[in-house]
Protein backbone atom coordinates (compact mmCIF):
# COMPACT_ATOMS: atom_id res chain seq x y z
CA UNK A 1 0.00 0.00 0.00
CA UNK A 2 1.37 3.35 -1.05
CA UNK A 3 1.31 6.45 1.15
CA UNK A 4 1.71 9.60 -0.91
CA UNK A 5 2.92 13.01 0.18
CA UNK A 6 -0.63 14.23 -0.36
CA UNK A 7 -2.02 11.35 1.70
CA UNK A 8 0.28 12.17 4.61
CA UNK A 9 -0.35 15.91 4.24
CA UNK A 10 3.32 16.53 3.44
CA UNK A 11 3.14 18.28 0.06
CA UNK A 12 4.73 21.31 1.68
CA UNK A 13 7.78 19.38 2.88
CA UNK A 14 11.26 19.61 1.42
CA UNK A 15 10.99 15.96 0.44
CA UNK A 16 7.94 16.70 -1.68
CA UNK A 17 9.72 19.68 -3.24
CA UNK A 18 12.63 17.43 -4.23
CA UNK A 19 10.29 14.83 -5.72
CA UNK A 20 8.37 17.56 -7.56
CA UNK A 21 11.65 18.84 -8.97
CA UNK A 22 12.51 15.33 -10.20
CA UNK A 23 9.02 14.71 -11.63
CA UNK A 24 9.25 18.10 -13.35
CA UNK A 25 12.62 17.12 -14.78
CA UNK A 26 11.12 14.03 -16.37
CA UNK A 27 8.13 16.07 -17.52
CA UNK A 28 10.37 18.62 -19.25
CA UNK A 29 12.50 15.86 -20.73
CA UNK A 30 9.49 14.13 -22.26
CA UNK A 31 8.05 17.40 -23.62
CA UNK A 32 11.36 18.34 -25.22
CA UNK A 33 11.93 14.89 -26.70
CA UNK A 34 8.47 15.06 -28.28
CA UNK A 35 9.41 18.34 -29.97
CA UNK A 36 7.43 20.67 -27.72
CA UNK A 37 10.29 23.11 -27.42
CA UNK A 38 9.11 24.48 -30.75
CA UNK A 39 6.05 26.72 -31.03
CA UNK A 40 5.79 26.05 -34.74
CA UNK A 41 5.50 22.34 -34.08
CA UNK A 42 2.98 22.90 -31.28
CA UNK A 43 0.84 25.10 -33.53
CA UNK A 44 0.63 22.26 -36.05
CA UNK A 45 -2.40 20.71 -34.36
CA UNK A 46 -4.49 23.84 -35.04
CA UNK A 47 -3.82 23.57 -38.77
CA UNK A 48 -3.91 19.76 -39.00
CA UNK A 49 -0.37 19.66 -40.42
CA UNK A 50 1.29 18.13 -37.34
CA UNK A 51 -0.86 16.23 -34.83
CA UNK A 52 1.99 15.51 -32.39
CA UNK A 53 0.23 17.37 -29.56
CA UNK A 54 -2.77 15.08 -29.82
CA UNK A 55 -0.65 11.92 -30.06
CA UNK A 56 1.59 12.79 -27.09
CA UNK A 57 -1.13 14.17 -24.84
CA UNK A 58 -3.61 11.40 -25.53
CA UNK A 59 -0.93 8.72 -25.08
CA UNK A 60 0.23 10.28 -21.81
CA UNK A 61 -3.34 10.54 -20.54
CA UNK A 62 -4.13 6.93 -21.50
CA UNK A 63 -0.87 5.64 -19.99
CA UNK A 64 -1.45 7.33 -16.65
CA UNK A 65 -5.15 6.48 -16.65
CA UNK A 66 -4.61 2.78 -17.36
CA UNK A 67 -1.71 2.60 -14.91
CA UNK A 68 -3.63 4.30 -12.13
CA UNK A 69 -6.79 2.26 -12.61
CA UNK A 70 -4.80 -0.99 -12.77
CA UNK A 71 -2.89 -0.15 -9.57
CA UNK A 72 -6.11 0.82 -7.82
CA UNK A 73 -7.86 -2.36 -8.97
CA UNK A 74 -5.10 -4.54 -7.49
CA UNK A 75 -5.14 -2.45 -4.31
CA UNK A 76 -1.65 -0.98 -4.58
CA UNK A 77 -2.92 2.53 -3.98
CA UNK A 78 -6.09 3.71 -2.32
CA UNK A 79 -8.05 6.59 -3.78
CA UNK A 80 -7.75 8.57 -0.55
CA UNK A 81 -4.03 8.93 -1.30
CA UNK A 82 -4.72 10.94 -4.45
CA UNK A 83 -5.96 14.46 -4.89
CA UNK A 84 -8.88 14.48 -7.30
CA UNK A 85 -9.43 17.74 -9.10
CA UNK A 86 -12.86 19.20 -8.40
CA UNK A 87 -15.18 20.09 -11.26
CA UNK A 88 -16.33 23.69 -11.58
CA UNK A 89 -18.30 23.64 -14.83
CA UNK A 90 -18.53 27.36 -15.57
CA UNK A 91 -14.99 28.29 -14.57
CA UNK A 92 -13.44 25.37 -16.41
CA UNK A 93 -15.41 25.80 -19.63
CA UNK A 94 -14.93 29.58 -19.73
CA UNK A 95 -11.31 29.24 -18.65
CA UNK A 96 -10.77 26.56 -21.28
CA UNK A 97 -12.16 28.74 -24.05
CA UNK A 98 -10.00 31.74 -23.09
CA UNK A 99 -7.01 29.44 -22.66
CA UNK A 100 -7.62 27.99 -26.13
CA UNK A 101 -7.65 31.44 -27.72
CA UNK A 102 -4.36 32.27 -26.01
CA UNK A 103 -2.92 28.86 -26.87
CA UNK A 104 -3.66 29.28 -30.60
CA UNK A 105 -2.29 32.85 -30.60
CA UNK A 106 0.95 32.09 -28.79
CA UNK A 107 1.32 28.39 -29.66
CA UNK A 108 2.61 27.87 -26.11
CA UNK A 109 1.14 26.58 -22.91
CA UNK A 110 2.80 26.95 -19.49
CA UNK A 111 4.65 23.61 -19.49
CA UNK A 112 5.84 23.70 -23.08
CA UNK A 113 6.91 27.34 -22.73
CA UNK A 114 9.34 26.30 -19.97
CA UNK A 115 10.86 23.85 -22.45
CA UNK A 116 10.72 26.55 -25.13
CA UNK A 117 12.74 28.90 -22.93
CA UNK A 118 15.24 26.08 -22.34
CA UNK A 119 15.45 25.68 -26.13
CA UNK A 120 16.25 29.37 -26.57
CA UNK A 121 12.89 30.44 -27.97
CA UNK A 122 12.38 34.17 -27.53
CA UNK A 123 8.64 33.82 -28.15
CA UNK A 124 8.47 31.45 -25.17
CA UNK A 125 10.11 34.06 -22.95
CA UNK A 126 7.60 36.66 -24.16
CA UNK A 127 4.75 34.20 -23.59
CA UNK A 128 5.88 33.54 -20.02
CA UNK A 129 6.10 37.26 -19.28
CA UNK A 130 2.56 37.52 -20.60
CA UNK A 131 1.45 34.57 -18.46
CA UNK A 132 2.90 36.19 -15.33
CA UNK A 133 1.07 39.40 -16.21
CA UNK A 134 -2.14 37.43 -16.82
CA UNK A 135 -1.82 35.74 -13.42
CA UNK A 136 -1.30 39.07 -11.67
CA UNK A 137 -4.24 40.49 -13.61
CA UNK A 138 -6.40 37.63 -12.37
CA UNK A 139 -5.41 38.38 -8.79
CA UNK A 140 -6.30 42.05 -9.28
CA UNK A 141 -9.82 41.31 -10.52
CA UNK A 142 -10.36 38.19 -8.40
CA UNK A 143 -12.80 39.76 -5.94
CA UNK A 144 -15.08 40.68 -8.84
CA UNK A 145 -14.63 37.23 -10.37
CA UNK A 146 -15.43 35.14 -7.31
CA UNK A 147 -18.90 34.18 -8.59
CA UNK A 148 -17.40 33.06 -11.93
CA UNK A 149 -14.56 31.25 -10.16
CA UNK A 150 -17.11 29.10 -8.31
CA UNK A 151 -19.65 29.05 -11.14
CA UNK A 152 -20.97 25.50 -11.49
CA UNK A 153 -18.98 24.03 -8.61
CA UNK A 154 -19.82 20.33 -8.61
CA UNK A 155 -17.06 19.04 -6.33
CA UNK A 156 -15.21 15.87 -7.27
CA UNK A 157 -17.06 14.63 -10.30
CA UNK A 158 -16.15 11.82 -12.67
CA UNK A 159 -17.23 11.63 -16.25
CA UNK A 160 -18.10 7.93 -15.99
CA UNK A 161 -20.30 8.63 -12.99
CA UNK A 162 -21.94 11.53 -14.84
CA UNK A 163 -22.66 9.13 -17.71
CA UNK A 164 -23.79 6.33 -15.40
CA UNK A 165 -21.14 3.87 -16.60
CA UNK A 166 -18.78 1.83 -14.35
CA UNK A 167 -15.28 3.34 -14.27
CA UNK A 168 -13.56 0.30 -15.75
CA UNK A 169 -15.98 0.17 -18.68
CA UNK A 170 -15.44 3.85 -19.37
CA UNK A 171 -11.66 3.42 -19.21
CA UNK A 172 -11.91 0.70 -21.86
CA UNK A 173 -14.10 2.95 -24.04
CA UNK A 174 -11.65 5.80 -23.58
CA UNK A 175 -8.79 3.53 -24.65
CA UNK A 176 -10.72 2.62 -27.82
CA UNK A 177 -11.33 6.31 -28.55
CA UNK A 178 -7.60 6.99 -28.10
CA UNK A 179 -6.63 4.29 -30.57
CA UNK A 180 -9.15 5.64 -33.08
CA UNK A 181 -7.79 9.17 -32.50
CA UNK A 182 -4.22 8.01 -33.18
CA UNK A 183 -5.16 6.46 -36.51
CA UNK A 184 -7.28 9.51 -37.34
CA UNK A 185 -4.39 11.83 -36.50
CA UNK A 186 -1.98 9.91 -38.75
CA UNK A 187 -4.55 9.85 -41.53
CA UNK A 188 -5.15 13.63 -41.15
CA UNK A 189 -1.41 14.33 -41.35
CA UNK A 190 -1.17 12.23 -44.49
CA UNK A 191 -4.06 14.08 -46.15
CA UNK A 192 -3.05 17.59 -45.10
CA UNK A 193 0.74 17.50 -45.02
CA UNK A 194 1.58 14.28 -46.81
CA UNK A 195 3.21 12.87 -43.66
CA UNK A 196 1.44 10.58 -41.20
CA UNK A 197 4.67 8.67 -40.66
CA UNK A 198 3.11 5.99 -38.45
CA UNK A 199 -0.07 5.31 -40.45
CA UNK A 200 -0.43 1.56 -40.97
CA UNK A 201 3.02 0.82 -39.54
CA UNK A 202 3.72 -2.29 -37.50
CA UNK A 203 4.56 0.03 -34.61
CA UNK A 204 1.17 1.71 -34.52
CA UNK A 205 -0.62 -1.62 -34.89
CA UNK A 206 1.33 -3.14 -31.98
CA UNK A 207 0.89 0.00 -29.89
CA UNK A 208 -2.86 0.05 -30.54
CA UNK A 209 -3.22 -3.61 -29.61
CA UNK A 210 -1.19 -3.09 -26.44
CA UNK A 211 -3.49 -0.25 -25.33
CA UNK A 212 -6.59 -2.31 -26.02
CA UNK A 213 -5.20 -5.37 -24.21
CA UNK A 214 -4.45 -3.34 -21.07
CA UNK A 215 -7.85 -1.66 -21.38
CA UNK A 216 -9.62 -5.02 -21.54
CA UNK A 217 -7.48 -6.43 -18.71
CA UNK A 218 -8.40 -3.62 -16.29
CA UNK A 219 -12.06 -4.00 -17.28
CA UNK A 220 -11.97 -7.58 -16.00
CA UNK A 221 -10.49 -6.62 -12.67
CA UNK A 222 -12.92 -5.66 -9.92
CA UNK A 223 -14.04 -2.12 -10.53
CA UNK A 224 -12.41 -0.05 -7.84
CA UNK A 225 -13.85 3.26 -8.89
CA UNK A 226 -11.32 5.95 -8.12
CA UNK A 227 -13.04 8.61 -6.13
CA UNK A 228 -15.58 6.00 -5.44
CA UNK A 229 -13.46 7.39 -2.65
CA UNK A 230 -16.57 9.30 -1.83
CA UNK A 231 -19.18 6.94 -3.28
CA UNK A 232 -18.27 3.28 -2.83
CA UNK A 233 -15.88 4.01 0.02
CA UNK A 234 -18.66 5.49 2.10
CA UNK A 235 -21.05 2.72 1.12
CA UNK A 236 -18.56 0.04 2.07
CA UNK A 237 -18.17 1.75 5.44
CA UNK A 238 -21.91 1.85 6.04
CA UNK A 239 -22.26 -1.77 4.98
CA UNK A 240 -19.60 -2.83 7.47
CA UNK A 241 -21.31 -0.83 10.20
CA UNK A 242 -24.58 -2.59 9.49
CA UNK A 243 -22.83 -5.95 9.43
CA UNK A 244 -21.12 -5.23 12.75
CA UNK A 245 -24.46 -4.24 14.24
CA UNK A 246 -26.12 -7.40 12.94
CA UNK A 247 -23.33 -9.60 14.27
CA UNK A 248 -23.55 -7.86 17.64
CA UNK A 249 -19.95 -6.76 17.33
CA UNK A 250 -20.83 -3.19 18.19
CA UNK A 251 -21.75 -3.72 21.83
CA UNK A 252 -20.33 -5.25 24.96
CA UNK A 253 -22.24 -6.91 27.82
CA UNK A 254 -22.41 -5.16 31.23
CA UNK A 255 -21.15 -8.25 33.07
CA UNK A 256 -18.00 -8.30 30.96
CA UNK A 257 -17.42 -4.60 31.56
CA UNK A 258 -17.96 -5.09 35.29
CA UNK A 259 -15.50 -7.98 35.46
CA UNK A 260 -12.86 -6.16 33.48
CA UNK A 261 -13.20 -3.01 35.60
CA UNK A 262 -12.92 -5.05 38.78
CA UNK A 263 -9.87 -6.78 37.43
CA UNK A 264 -8.27 -3.38 36.93
CA UNK A 265 -8.10 -3.74 33.15
CA UNK A 266 -6.26 -0.58 32.04
CA UNK A 267 -7.00 -1.19 28.35
CA UNK A 268 -10.70 -0.54 28.97
CA UNK A 269 -11.87 3.05 28.65
CA UNK A 270 -15.42 3.47 29.86
CA UNK A 271 -16.96 6.75 28.75
CA UNK A 272 -20.14 8.20 30.22
CA UNK A 273 -21.61 10.48 27.56
CA UNK A 274 -24.39 11.88 29.73
CA UNK A 275 -24.36 15.42 31.07
CA UNK A 276 -21.82 16.35 33.76
CA UNK A 277 -24.70 16.77 36.23
CA UNK A 278 -25.94 13.24 35.64
CA UNK A 279 -22.36 12.00 35.81
CA UNK A 280 -21.83 13.76 39.12
CA UNK A 281 -25.04 12.26 40.53
CA UNK A 282 -23.94 8.75 39.70
CA UNK A 283 -21.66 6.95 37.31
CA UNK A 284 -20.13 3.54 36.95
CA UNK A 285 -16.93 3.42 38.98
CA UNK A 286 -13.97 3.93 36.69
CA UNK A 287 -15.94 5.76 34.02
CA UNK A 288 -14.90 9.12 32.61
CA UNK A 289 -17.27 11.81 31.43
CA UNK A 290 -17.17 13.30 27.92
CA UNK A 291 -19.85 14.79 25.71
CA UNK A 292 -20.54 13.14 22.36
CA UNK A 293 -19.16 16.11 20.45
CA UNK A 294 -15.77 15.96 22.16
CA UNK A 295 -15.38 12.18 21.82
CA UNK A 296 -13.17 12.10 18.70
CA UNK A 297 -10.67 14.46 20.27
CA UNK A 298 -10.93 13.00 23.75
CA UNK A 299 -10.49 9.44 22.51
CA UNK A 300 -7.80 10.14 19.92
CA UNK A 301 -5.05 8.58 22.08
CA UNK A 302 -7.17 5.43 22.44
CA UNK A 303 -7.95 5.09 18.73
CA UNK A 304 -7.59 1.41 17.83
CA UNK A 305 -5.85 0.74 21.14
CA UNK A 306 -7.59 -1.13 23.89
CA UNK A 307 -11.37 -1.11 24.25
CA UNK A 308 -13.56 1.96 24.26
CA UNK A 309 -17.01 1.49 25.78
CA UNK A 310 -19.62 4.24 25.58
CA UNK A 311 -22.69 4.41 27.74
CA UNK A 312 -25.63 6.61 28.53
CA UNK A 313 -28.88 5.78 30.28
CA UNK A 314 -30.17 3.92 27.23
CA UNK A 315 -28.55 2.80 24.02
CA UNK A 316 -29.55 5.29 21.32
CA UNK A 317 -26.98 8.01 21.84
CA UNK A 318 -24.05 5.68 22.52
CA UNK A 319 -24.97 3.68 19.39
CA UNK A 320 -24.98 6.80 17.26
CA UNK A 321 -21.74 7.96 18.81
CA UNK A 322 -20.14 4.54 18.32
CA UNK A 323 -21.09 4.51 14.62
CA UNK A 324 -19.72 8.01 14.15
CA UNK A 325 -16.44 6.93 15.75
CA UNK A 326 -16.36 3.81 13.58
CA UNK A 327 -16.73 5.99 10.49
CA UNK A 328 -13.77 8.02 11.72
CA UNK A 329 -11.70 4.88 11.81
CA UNK A 330 -12.14 3.80 15.45
CA UNK A 331 -12.33 0.02 15.19
CA UNK A 332 -12.34 -0.45 18.97
CA UNK A 333 -15.43 1.49 20.05
CA UNK A 334 -18.38 -0.34 21.62
CA UNK A 335 -21.55 0.58 23.39
CA UNK A 336 -22.68 -0.86 26.68
CA UNK A 337 -25.58 -3.23 26.09
CA UNK A 338 -28.77 -1.84 27.67
CA UNK A 339 -26.83 1.23 28.89
CA UNK A 340 -26.66 2.32 32.50
CA UNK A 341 -30.19 0.98 33.05
CA UNK A 342 -28.99 -2.47 32.01
CA UNK A 343 -25.89 -2.16 34.18
CA UNK A 344 -28.11 -1.44 37.18
CA UNK A 345 -30.39 -4.36 36.43
CA UNK A 346 -27.82 -6.94 35.42
CA UNK A 347 -24.85 -6.02 37.61
CA UNK A 348 -25.88 -3.90 40.52
CA UNK A 349 -29.32 -5.24 41.38
CA UNK A 350 -29.07 -7.26 44.59
CA UNK A 351 -29.59 -10.98 44.11
CA UNK A 352 -32.49 -10.88 46.53
CA UNK A 353 -34.47 -8.48 44.37
CA UNK A 354 -34.02 -10.33 41.08
CA UNK A 355 -37.04 -12.01 39.52
CA UNK A 356 -35.53 -15.43 39.05
CA UNK A 357 -33.78 -17.18 41.96
CA UNK A 358 -30.05 -16.63 41.64
CA UNK A 359 -27.75 -19.63 42.14
CA UNK A 360 -25.13 -19.23 44.82
CA UNK A 361 -22.11 -18.70 42.58
CA UNK A 362 -23.61 -15.76 40.61
CA UNK A 363 -25.02 -14.41 43.85
CA UNK A 364 -21.50 -14.20 45.24
CA UNK A 365 -20.41 -12.48 42.10
CA UNK A 366 -23.23 -9.94 42.37
CA UNK A 367 -22.11 -9.20 45.91
CA UNK A 368 -18.58 -8.65 44.70
CA UNK A 369 -19.78 -6.33 41.92
CA UNK A 370 -21.90 -4.35 44.36
CA UNK A 371 -19.02 -4.09 46.75
CA UNK A 372 -16.74 -2.80 44.01
CA UNK A 373 -19.17 -0.42 42.26
CA UNK A 374 -21.28 0.74 45.17
CA UNK A 375 -18.85 0.40 48.03
CA UNK A 376 -21.23 -1.89 49.94
CA UNK A 377 -23.22 -5.00 49.07
CA UNK A 378 -26.10 -3.55 51.04
CA UNK A 379 -26.32 -0.12 49.38
CA UNK A 380 -29.44 0.65 47.48
CA UNK A 381 -29.39 1.03 43.76
CA UNK A 382 -29.18 4.76 43.09
CA UNK A 383 -32.19 6.40 41.57
CA UNK A 384 -31.71 8.11 38.27
Amino acid at each position, binding site marked *: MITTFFGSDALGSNGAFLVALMVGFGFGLALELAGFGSSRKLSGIFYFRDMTVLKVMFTAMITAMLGLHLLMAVGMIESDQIYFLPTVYGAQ*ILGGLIFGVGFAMSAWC*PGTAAVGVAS*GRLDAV*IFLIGAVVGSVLFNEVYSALVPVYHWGDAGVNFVWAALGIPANVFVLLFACVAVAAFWGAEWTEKKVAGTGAYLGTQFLKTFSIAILVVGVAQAFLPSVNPGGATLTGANAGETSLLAAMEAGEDHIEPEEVADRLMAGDKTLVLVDIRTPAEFAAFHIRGAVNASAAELPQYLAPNKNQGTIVLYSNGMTHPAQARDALARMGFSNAYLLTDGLNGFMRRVLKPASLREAPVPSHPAAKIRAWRLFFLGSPESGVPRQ
Partner: protein
Amino acid sequence: MESNDSSSSAGPKPYMNPYVAGVVLGLMLLASFLVLGVGLGASAGIARIGACLQGCILPGHVQGSEYFGSWGTDPLRYYLVYMFAGTLLGGLVSAIVSRRVQPQLERGATAPRRLRILLALVGGVLVGFASRLASGCTSGQALTGGAILATGSLLFLVSVFAGGYATAYFVRRQWQ
Protein backbone atom coordinates in the same frame (compact mmCIF):
# COMPACT_ATOMS: atom_id res chain seq x y z
CA MET B 1 30.11 10.12 -31.00
CA GLU B 2 33.87 9.97 -31.15
CA SER B 3 34.52 13.55 -32.06
CA ASN B 4 32.93 16.45 -30.28
CA ASP B 5 33.46 18.64 -33.33
CA SER B 6 31.45 16.44 -35.61
CA SER B 7 28.65 16.10 -33.07
CA SER B 8 28.39 19.81 -32.36
CA SER B 9 28.31 20.65 -36.04
CA ALA B 10 25.65 18.03 -36.73
CA GLY B 11 22.04 19.15 -36.91
CA PRO B 12 19.44 18.53 -34.24
CA LYS B 13 18.51 14.94 -33.50
CA PRO B 14 15.15 13.79 -34.82
CA TYR B 15 12.24 14.06 -32.43
CA MET B 16 11.26 11.02 -30.43
CA ASN B 17 8.42 8.85 -31.64
CA PRO B 18 5.41 10.82 -30.28
CA TYR B 19 3.74 7.72 -28.86
CA VAL B 20 6.90 6.71 -27.01
CA ALA B 21 7.29 10.29 -25.75
CA GLY B 22 3.64 10.14 -24.68
CA VAL B 23 4.25 6.94 -22.72
CA VAL B 24 7.27 8.54 -21.01
CA LEU B 25 5.16 11.59 -20.16
CA GLY B 26 2.32 9.37 -18.93
CA LEU B 27 4.71 7.43 -16.69
CA MET B 28 5.95 10.72 -15.22
CA LEU B 29 2.34 11.65 -14.49
CA LEU B 30 1.74 8.23 -12.96
CA ALA B 31 4.88 8.56 -10.84
CA SER B 32 3.64 11.95 -9.67
CA PHE B 33 0.32 10.40 -8.63
CA LEU B 34 2.01 7.50 -6.84
CA VAL B 35 4.66 9.45 -4.97
CA LEU B 36 3.24 12.95 -4.55
CA GLY B 37 -0.42 11.95 -4.71
CA VAL B 38 -1.08 14.81 -7.13
CA GLY B 39 -0.61 15.19 -10.86
CA LEU B 40 1.52 17.52 -12.94
CA GLY B 41 1.22 21.29 -13.06
CA ALA B 42 2.93 24.25 -14.64
CA SER B 43 0.73 27.34 -14.52
CA ALA B 44 0.63 27.49 -10.72
CA GLY B 45 4.41 27.79 -10.73
CA ILE B 46 4.19 30.76 -13.10
CA ALA B 47 1.41 32.39 -11.07
CA ARG B 48 3.41 32.02 -7.86
CA ILE B 49 6.43 33.59 -9.52
CA GLY B 50 4.04 36.41 -10.45
CA ALA B 51 2.84 36.67 -6.86
CA CYS B 52 6.46 36.76 -5.68
CA LEU B 53 7.49 39.44 -8.21
CA GLN B 54 4.46 41.58 -7.42
CA GLY B 55 5.14 41.03 -3.73
CA CYS B 56 8.65 42.45 -4.15
CA ILE B 57 7.14 45.68 -5.48
CA LEU B 58 3.89 45.88 -3.53
CA PRO B 59 4.24 43.54 -0.51
CA GLY B 60 1.30 44.97 1.41
CA HIS B 61 -0.97 44.88 -1.60
CA VAL B 62 -0.21 41.22 -2.40
CA GLN B 63 -0.60 40.11 1.20
CA GLY B 64 -3.90 41.93 1.37
CA SER B 65 -5.24 40.56 -1.89
CA GLU B 66 -7.75 37.78 -1.70
CA TYR B 67 -6.20 35.36 -4.19
CA PHE B 68 -2.40 35.77 -3.96
CA GLY B 69 -2.75 36.65 -0.28
CA SER B 70 -4.00 33.14 0.48
CA TRP B 71 -0.61 31.79 -0.63
CA GLY B 72 1.12 33.29 2.38
CA THR B 73 4.25 35.36 2.67
CA ASP B 74 6.40 32.93 0.69
CA PRO B 75 4.41 31.83 -2.38
CA LEU B 76 7.46 30.09 -3.82
CA ARG B 77 7.45 27.45 -1.07
CA TYR B 78 5.12 25.24 -3.07
CA TYR B 79 5.72 21.94 -4.84
CA LEU B 80 4.50 23.20 -8.23
CA VAL B 81 7.13 25.94 -8.22
CA TYR B 82 9.76 23.22 -7.90
CA MET B 83 8.05 21.18 -10.57
CA PHE B 84 8.16 24.15 -12.93
CA ALA B 85 11.88 24.58 -12.23
CA GLY B 86 12.34 20.87 -12.90
CA THR B 87 10.48 21.16 -16.19
CA LEU B 88 12.82 23.93 -17.28
CA LEU B 89 15.87 21.89 -16.24
CA GLY B 90 14.64 18.70 -17.90
CA GLY B 91 13.87 20.63 -21.08
CA LEU B 92 17.30 22.24 -20.98
CA VAL B 93 19.18 18.96 -20.56
CA SER B 94 17.17 17.31 -23.31
CA ALA B 95 17.51 20.28 -25.66
CA ILE B 96 21.28 20.38 -25.15
CA VAL B 97 21.73 16.64 -25.60
CA SER B 98 19.45 16.66 -28.66
CA ARG B 99 21.23 19.75 -30.04
CA ARG B 100 18.00 21.68 -30.25
CA VAL B 101 18.98 24.86 -28.38
CA GLN B 102 18.39 27.48 -31.06
CA PRO B 103 18.02 31.08 -29.88
CA GLN B 104 15.31 32.52 -32.14
CA LEU B 105 11.89 34.10 -32.35
CA GLU B 106 10.06 31.21 -33.90
CA ARG B 107 7.69 32.28 -36.69
CA GLY B 108 6.85 31.77 -40.37
CA ALA B 109 9.44 32.74 -42.97
CA THR B 110 7.62 35.90 -44.09
CA ALA B 111 5.79 36.66 -40.83
CA PRO B 112 6.58 40.03 -39.25
CA ARG B 113 8.52 39.86 -36.00
CA ARG B 114 6.16 42.33 -34.35
CA LEU B 115 3.13 40.17 -35.15
CA ARG B 116 4.70 37.12 -33.54
CA ILE B 117 5.81 39.10 -30.46
CA LEU B 118 2.34 40.61 -30.06
CA LEU B 119 0.56 37.26 -30.40
CA ALA B 120 2.96 35.51 -28.01
CA LEU B 121 2.48 38.27 -25.44
CA VAL B 122 -1.30 38.59 -25.69
CA GLY B 123 -1.63 34.80 -25.86
CA GLY B 124 0.49 34.57 -22.73
CA VAL B 125 -1.69 37.04 -20.84
CA LEU B 126 -4.84 35.14 -21.81
CA VAL B 127 -3.29 31.77 -20.89
CA GLY B 128 -2.01 33.09 -17.56
CA PHE B 129 -5.41 34.55 -16.72
CA ALA B 130 -7.42 31.54 -17.91
CA SER B 131 -5.19 29.09 -16.04
CA ARG B 132 -6.05 30.82 -12.77
CA LEU B 133 -9.74 30.95 -13.62
CA ALA B 134 -9.81 27.23 -14.42
CA SER B 135 -7.31 26.36 -11.64
CA GLY B 136 -4.89 24.74 -14.06
CA CYS B 137 -3.56 24.55 -17.58
CA THR B 138 -2.98 21.86 -20.17
CA SER B 139 -0.80 20.01 -17.62
CA GLY B 140 -2.70 20.49 -14.39
CA GLN B 141 -6.23 20.34 -15.75
CA ALA B 142 -6.32 18.68 -19.18
CA LEU B 143 -3.62 16.03 -18.72
CA THR B 144 -3.86 15.38 -14.98
CA GLY B 145 -7.63 15.72 -14.68
CA GLY B 146 -8.11 13.84 -17.94
CA ALA B 147 -6.12 10.87 -16.64
CA ILE B 148 -8.39 10.58 -13.59
CA LEU B 149 -11.43 11.20 -15.82
CA ALA B 150 -12.55 14.30 -13.93
CA THR B 151 -15.57 15.76 -15.72
CA GLY B 152 -14.51 19.41 -15.47
CA SER B 153 -10.96 18.69 -16.63
CA LEU B 154 -12.17 16.88 -19.74
CA LEU B 155 -14.57 19.75 -20.45
CA PHE B 156 -11.63 22.12 -20.01
CA LEU B 157 -9.70 20.10 -22.60
CA VAL B 158 -12.58 20.22 -25.07
CA SER B 159 -13.01 23.96 -24.45
CA VAL B 160 -9.30 24.61 -25.01
CA PHE B 161 -9.44 23.07 -28.46
CA ALA B 162 -12.78 24.71 -29.23
CA GLY B 163 -11.25 28.10 -28.41
CA GLY B 164 -8.04 27.21 -30.22
CA TYR B 165 -9.64 26.06 -33.45
CA ALA B 166 -11.95 29.09 -33.45
CA THR B 167 -8.89 31.36 -33.22
CA ALA B 168 -6.29 29.53 -35.31
CA TYR B 169 -7.53 30.77 -38.68
CA PHE B 170 -7.21 34.41 -37.65
CA VAL B 171 -3.64 34.10 -36.41
CA ARG B 172 -2.29 31.84 -39.18
CA ARG B 173 -0.26 34.68 -40.73
CA GLN B 174 2.45 34.27 -38.08
CA TRP B 175 3.37 30.85 -39.46
CA GLN B 176 3.47 31.85 -43.16
